[in-house]
């Protein structure tokens, strides 16, 4: 049934349909609407779950870790400073191999104080061992959240479903909300591979001295390497039930493209608009939208980009002293190709600043005219 839904509520609906049992969160703009709706569902009985109010995001994740260790499906949501405060426990969640799902609304970090769209918060958590899936539309948010539980519970790694602040979290779009029965078919109840058990007492997460620790870390990496094929399986099954699929990356007009834009999130929509105009003007351009960032889908990226002459990576983030984070990842992925395209890095749209069609024209223009990429990222849309 299609409903006009805010992006935040697309998450809430998915979590309700996923029958999460424990939700623990601390409010922070622009994430608040997600857990606000969920707390109402818990209160009015439309969800059979325990909502744990906590005093910080650190405790929210701690609660999820506890609940997930006990073997139930859990959920939290955060953003920006809240996510940063969770940092320590993000490592714990993945190290303990707990299939927690979190909605992460991309927001800038202060100061200056800023509540708007920026990818710095989620990308700062790149190395915590969480699967990261970036979304573009309300429908994708809902679908990805449902897929996230299947994926997390298959590989025993936590999943972060990432959506842009306001552009997605607070934008109303028509969203097809699946019925509970279909969701239950796709996402049966959670059977944990490991959990605390009163009948068979055990302690988890205690000391692992040098003789043990390294293998555990290797196990996380092996699980990460298994994510991509399992994600393909999950998507296939999702497609069977709901008739929708996204892929770890989504190419558009890439087959014959000499110039390919790469980005994650809602700016991909704007980029497609620009590509229509540019194609009409005779430019051979395409766009590759990144959905999966961790694990990084190397094969898919190489396959889609290796024939291009130049790749234009748009980052709504900056690793200060280096440059756009997606661009660095793309460069390192493409380095393994025999004849790899040149990678041009652009930074734009930080702290919620709009990225318009004209900005894409500008990026293409600069890229066409440059013989070789500059060392550092080029900033687009700075005030004069």
């Amino acid at each position, binding site marked *: 049934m299609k409903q006009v839904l805010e992006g935040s509520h697309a998450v809430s609906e998915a979590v309700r349909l996923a029958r999460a049992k424990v939700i623990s969160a601390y409010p922070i703009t622009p994430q608040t609407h997600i857990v606000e709706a969920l707390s109402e569902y818990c209160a009015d009985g439309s969800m059979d779950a325990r909502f744990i109010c906590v005093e910080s995001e650190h405790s929210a994740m701690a609660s999820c870790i506890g609940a997930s260790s006990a073997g139930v499906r859990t959920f939290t949501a955060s953003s920006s400073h809240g996510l940063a405060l969770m940092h320590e426990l993000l490592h714990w969640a993945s190290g303990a191999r707990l299939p927690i799902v979190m909605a992460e609304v991309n927001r800038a970090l202060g100061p200056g104080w800023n509540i708007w769209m920026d990818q710095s918060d989620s990308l700062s958590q790149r190395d915590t061992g969480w699967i990261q899936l970036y979304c573009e539309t309300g429908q994708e948010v809902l679908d990805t959240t449902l897929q996230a539980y299947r994926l997390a519970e298959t590989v025993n790694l936590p999943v972060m479903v990432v959506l842009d602040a306001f552009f997605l979290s607070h934008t109303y779009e028509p969203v097809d909300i699946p019925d509970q029965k279909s969701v239950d078919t796709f996402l049966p109840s959670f059977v944990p*591979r490991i959990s605390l058990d009163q009948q068979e007492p055990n302690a*988890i997460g205690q000391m692992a001295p040098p003789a043990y620790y390294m293998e555990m870390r290797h196990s996380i990496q092996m699980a990460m390497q298994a994510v991509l094929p399992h994600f393909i399986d999950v998507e296939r099954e999702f497609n069977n039930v709901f008739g929708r699929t996204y892929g770890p990356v989504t190419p558009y007009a890439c087959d014959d493209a000499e110039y390919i834009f790469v980005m994650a999130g809602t700016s991909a929509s704007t980029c497609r608009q620009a590509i229509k105009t540019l194609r009409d003007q005779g430019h051979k351009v395409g766009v590759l939208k990144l959905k999966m960032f961790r694990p990084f889908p190397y094969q898919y990226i190489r396959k889609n980009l290796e024939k291009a002459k130049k790749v234009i990576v748009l980052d709504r983030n900056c690793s200060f002293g280096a440059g756009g984070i997606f661009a660095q990842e793309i460069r390192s992925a493409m380095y393994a190709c025999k004849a790899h395209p040149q990678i041009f890095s652009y930074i734009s749209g930080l702290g919620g600043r709009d990225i318009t069609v004209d900005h894409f024209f500008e990026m293409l223009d600069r890229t066409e005219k440059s013989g070789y990429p500059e060392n550092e990222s080029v900033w687009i849309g700075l005030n004069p």
Partner: protein
Amino acid sequence: MNQSIQTESPNNVSLLISQSRTNTLGNKTGTWRFVRPKYQEKTAPCSNACPLGIDIATVEMFASRKDYQSAFHKLLMENPFPAICGRVCFHPCESACNRQFLDQSVGIHYIERFLGDWGLTSKQSHISYPKLNGAKLGIVGAGPAGLATAYFARCLGYQCDIFEKSDQPGGLLTMGIPSYRLPDQTLQNELQRLNIDGIQFKYKQSISVDQLDAMKQSYDAFFLCCGDAQSISLNISGDAYAIDGLNLLRQIRIHEAPSLEGTIAVIGGGNTAIDVARSLLRMGAHPIIVYRRTRKEMPAHPHEIDAALDEGIALKECLSPIEIQKEADHLQMRLQVMKPGEKTKNGRQTYIPDDNPSETMPINHVVSAIGTEMEIMWQNDQWDLSMSHCRMKNIADIPVFWCGDLTTSEKTVTHALASGKQAVIAFDVLKNKGFDEIHSVCHQCQIGEGPAISFEIYRQGERKQRDNSEIVNFDRINTAYFPSIPALQVNKLSQNDCLNTFDEVVSGFDELQMSEEASRCFNCGICNDCDTCRIFCPEMAIQWDQNSRHILMDYCKGCGICIAECPRDAMNLEVEP
């Protein structure tokens, strides 16, 4: 440590985490310890202040649980007459109560009164005295000190004969305390506690010093508990017109008081003066208290003075009678105006005659209540043993103890009872262990700073396990556990209702009030099984079994959290031996 590798999975995804199926019993955290906690009960400041050293913190604990039997018997271990003391004691316990520093002191005397009354009506209040041990004591005087001596001695198996010069027991309780403070029925019921085999009252028998020698064949010791029976005279011109205050109170009690009307001057500032004035008010007269110093120096207890003034009794300060003259239909009392003089070495303000001319006061009657003194024959200053509440001298080879008002510094009912207790313990030590042991044994039974001593400790009761010399002050109470709750108030007769009745002025607590008020008690220094130590122990090293807690030293790491959390300082941290 037991690492568990779980790689079997339907989807072959690697899963390796640290997981242990052993328990923490193998981790003997006790080896980390260099200090160790210990359950160590101590003395509450109320017990330290109580002349009888009653274990008030424990009494309140039982009372809060409505375990009246345990509470009552705990009281009886140190005090033969809780229903009396709950009414007439001036409760120094409440002045010392730690709770006053949080909100208000616990109403300890109301709780004692409730429990005492419970004991008078309940069948479960029966006391079993031991068999007689063959020794026999002679007690002179059936007042509080004599009664206490008989009670504690009987508890140790001694047979007692009490010689009383009047025809009834009670002494000052009967003769000196008006029934609006101590109802007759309560008094009579309490005295029944001594109506047992082994205690014999011999009424209308005055004993003199000379008789003791003749009686020594029949007794192993004598206890002189005859009190300060002699009223002090005004010693002024016309003092024959003054009525003796104590005698008046006795007459009122036995309904033989003369009819007194009009304005009556009551001379004195002690409790007897207050009792006389308040009694006269109830008889329809207009009493005026005349005192030679100011209210601040009055030896009467402040709340008794307040009660008198609240009832409308006038107080004239800094006036000392110098002459009483008989006029046609009234008396003319001439009074010297007094003024502050130098302070004594103890800091007490003295008052000296002012140069101003004297005042005269027309009155219908005058009552003298300026104090009492002991009869000359009991005066003595050569002692074989001198203690805080009693003294002893061997007369004709048997020990004779001076007790009660004859020796105590403060002349109150509770001090008199304490005196009896001390004398009995001293005699028992003398008899069984010898004279030289008296001081050290009494010291071992001391509560707090003393001089109160505990009969329970003397009889090797549970209380002996405590560190009785250590007093728990307010700064050692963990107030995080005690929200502020004001003390419960009791009902009192209004000023008008007091006028024509000797009914008890102050009402007691009902059952609910009593347990609520007892629950306000911090139970300073004693374990009331709140279980906080066990709940907070991070190593779960405190175990509860067979109705007691014990610390598993294999696991106690000496962190001290149990001690920090104990709301009432019932635990100590000690350096490892």
